[in-house]
């Protein structure tokens, strides 16, 4: 590679500092380009295996329900789009939270791939708390269940944090191991004969149902048809909390300092180890909260299948990276991938156009490509620098400059 990147784009040590350079250099154009590239590659995959990419993407689009936003969608089409949009937003809710779980870790220089395990542990805690205490008043019950989920997630992620702080064990390996341990613990708990398996149907490997009083109220659509529950507001509130912690609190300042340069942070008196533990715990809170949102919002029980094939923690990685680990950046990727997941689901995708189980694998390919392209931030920055040179020297776009200082 003969292009000499701008000084800004020189390889820096930690993921946080590299991604910060990415933010300063790229603005919003780079994530958009990355996404387009990934979707283009996905289309190539479809083409190679004999499917029609345009028709497929169109069918996926139809299933997302995003047409509801456009005022020219009317009548039956609008009603169908409304239902589909509810489904999309149902998926988006936990995705926001698992995205935050990854993003928060990245800001401290930690790569939290354990979102899946933390989600599962949170879901287990929520389903246990939600199905016990049948006589508790509704608000208290929901509150306790969510609290249990957050605590469980924090504890699970905290294990990886403690290991990193005390022994320096790389969080990638520890969080992935914890993912698998969480899966097997869940399979054991709810399997036939397991300790938390429902007593009402002894042959079916699932948990007890969440009590009516612990369910999150639905505010759009019919509860029977899985309408949208208030969890989406909780998730959006979490985004605000994320921004507040990182940018308006001393803890957040320490976290970001540790992320940029752990040695300098340690030199100026911050405890890097304590910050690692705290950051992992907060990541666990976000991911565990995601688990509780699904359990208390629309699943109302956990079966072994739900645990085994859950991948929302991994989707959070692509979301966080595309959103450059910032609060404001998370919105668009979350909507995009939420729509992609919802649009390719068994329920929404027309099987004559494209097989839904093929489609879910397609989303993995697209997400993997996104992660791959984002990881090569330097080349993207170099391209941007070249492009800027082509069009003459000009200031970086305003949003990027503002975002470098704020979220």
């Amino acid at each position, binding site marked *: *590679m003969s292009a000499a990147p701008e000084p800004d784009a020189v*390889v820096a040590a930690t*993921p946080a500092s*590299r991604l910060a350079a990415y933010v300063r250099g790229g603005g919003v154009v780079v994530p958009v380009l990355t996404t387009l590239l990934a979707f283009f590659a996905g289309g190539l*995959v479809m083409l190679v*295996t004999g499917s029609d990419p345009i028709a497929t993407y169109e069918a996926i689009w139809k299933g997302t329900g995003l047409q509801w936003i456009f005022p020219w969608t009317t009548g039956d089409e609008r009603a169908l789009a409304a239902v589909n949009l509810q489904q999309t937003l149902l998926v988006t809710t936990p995705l926001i939270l698992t995205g935050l779980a990854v993003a928060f870790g990245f800001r401290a220089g930690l*790569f939290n*791939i354990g979102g899946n395990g933390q989600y599962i542990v949170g879901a287990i805690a929520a389903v246990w708390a939600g199905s016990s205490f049948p006589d508790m008043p509704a608000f208290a019950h929901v509150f306790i269940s969510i609290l249990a989920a957050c605590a469980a997630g924090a504890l699970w992620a905290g294990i990886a944090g403690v*290991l990193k702080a*005390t*022994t*320096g*064990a*790389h969080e*990638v*390996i*520890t969080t*992935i*191991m*914890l*993912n*698998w*341990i969480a899966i*097997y*613990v869940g*399979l*054991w708990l709810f*399997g*036939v*004969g*397991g300790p938390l398996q429902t007593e009402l149907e002894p042959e079916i490997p699932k948990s007890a149902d969440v009590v009516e009083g612990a369910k999150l109220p639905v505010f759009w659509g019919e509860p029977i048809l899985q309408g949208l529950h208030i969890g989406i507001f909780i998730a959006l509130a979490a985004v605000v909390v994320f921004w507040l912690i990182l940018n308006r609190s001393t803890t957040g300042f320490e976290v970001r300092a540790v992320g940029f340069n752990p040695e300098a942070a340690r030199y100026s008196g911050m405890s890097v180890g304590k910050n690692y533990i705290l950051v992992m715990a907060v990541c666990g809170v976000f991911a565990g909260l995601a688990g509780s949102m699904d359990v208390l919002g629309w699943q109302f029980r956990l079966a072994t299948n739900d645990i085994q094939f859950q991948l929302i923690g*991994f989707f959070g*990685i*692509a979301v966080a*990276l595309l959103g450059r680990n910032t609060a404001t950046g998370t919105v668009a990727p979350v909507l995009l991938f939420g729509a992609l997941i919802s649009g390719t689901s068994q329920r929404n995708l027309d099987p004559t156009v494209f*097989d839904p*189980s*093929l489609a*879910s*694998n*397609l*989303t*993995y*390919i*697209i*997400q*993997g*490509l*996104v*992660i*791959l*392209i*984002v*990881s*090569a*931030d*330097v*080349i993207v920055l170099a391209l941007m620098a070249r492009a800027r040179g082509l069009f003459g020297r000009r200031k970086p776009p305003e949003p990027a400059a503002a975002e470098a200082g704020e979220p």
Partner: protein
Amino acid sequence: MSTSVAAASRVALSARAAAWVGIGLGAVAWYLALPPILLRTAIPSLLIAAVGVAAGAYAVREGRRRLGWIAIVIAVIGAIGAVVATQSGEGNLERVFVWSALIAAMLRFATPLIFAAMGGILSERSGVINIGLEGMMLMGAFFGIFGADLLGSWFLGILVGVASGAVLGLVHAVVSIHLRADQVVSGTGINIIALGITGYVFIYHYGDQGTPPDVSQVPNLTIPLIEDIPFIGEAIGTMNLLTLTALLFVPVLTVYLFRTRGGLRLRSVGEKPRAADSVGLPVLRTRYLAVIASGALSALGGVYLSIGLLSAFSQNMTAGRGFIALAAVIFGSWRPYGALAGALLFGFSSAVARRLPAFSDSTAVLFEALPYVLTLVVVAGVIGRSRPPAAIGVPYVKE
């Protein structure tokens, strides 16, 4: 002056020895309660474990903190294990701890880990972190059985699988070396892409039925003389061809890395790339080849999974093995024999976990978590004790 140095080194040596004695005593304590000795009282084991703890404590006080603490932990685990074993039914114990079968199973489970670990060593010794071992193994697992099915022979299946892993290795190499990406993030992307590609082609080609049950399998080899020896025969008399290959590959890689010029060049590229470059070594090309080779080797481990061990493919069937292999690499201090020991340890835990359901049926699933818990413990206990290649993870910029 020299006597004090000698005295100091003598003390340091005995601290290290004490720690290893502690580890050994912990293992012995547990072993006493297992077949074939099957002591029914825990007292001797507890006494021995207590001595082990003391040895570990001595090591800690004499300065060998990490090793000493490991010894204490292992002695305590040995004591607990002995107590549990004496409480369990003799019949159950005898069914689970059939040592010859355990050893055979250990080798079977360790094979994919050994291949991936060798690949990991090559890549990391050249300075490139390869988190994508998992994805490359998965590619080999699918395309191995896919190739064997379409082309009719296990050998061609191996070639196809290895090639697919090499291709993915090439992608990782380009992104990590040429585009200078963050190697951990790009490795994660590789894993997810592999998950998607294998799942996509799997469903596209095989749909609901899954892979056919009669695909050509990699054959088992029976070593004629050894087979007849009572204990060893059941343990290693019959091994899969790929298992044998893996075991033979370890000394081959050791010789290559530490006794040949090519190995020296590889290691220098990973330790001091700028110095290597100034002497004229092709740093980038060496890294490319190392990463591609690691992809090929991991894929070979995956091929064993699908057409050597299980004769089927299911989505995400590698189940984290690539990461366990990475832990084995770290456990073994980036040396082939060390990684082999780690792989055998994890393989052993899988083998025991597979048989533990004899005790309790519903807990069977929980025992499946044993290898992952062990990996967690190992990674935590071992990291920092060994030093990775100096220039690992830092993309090389030619000046």
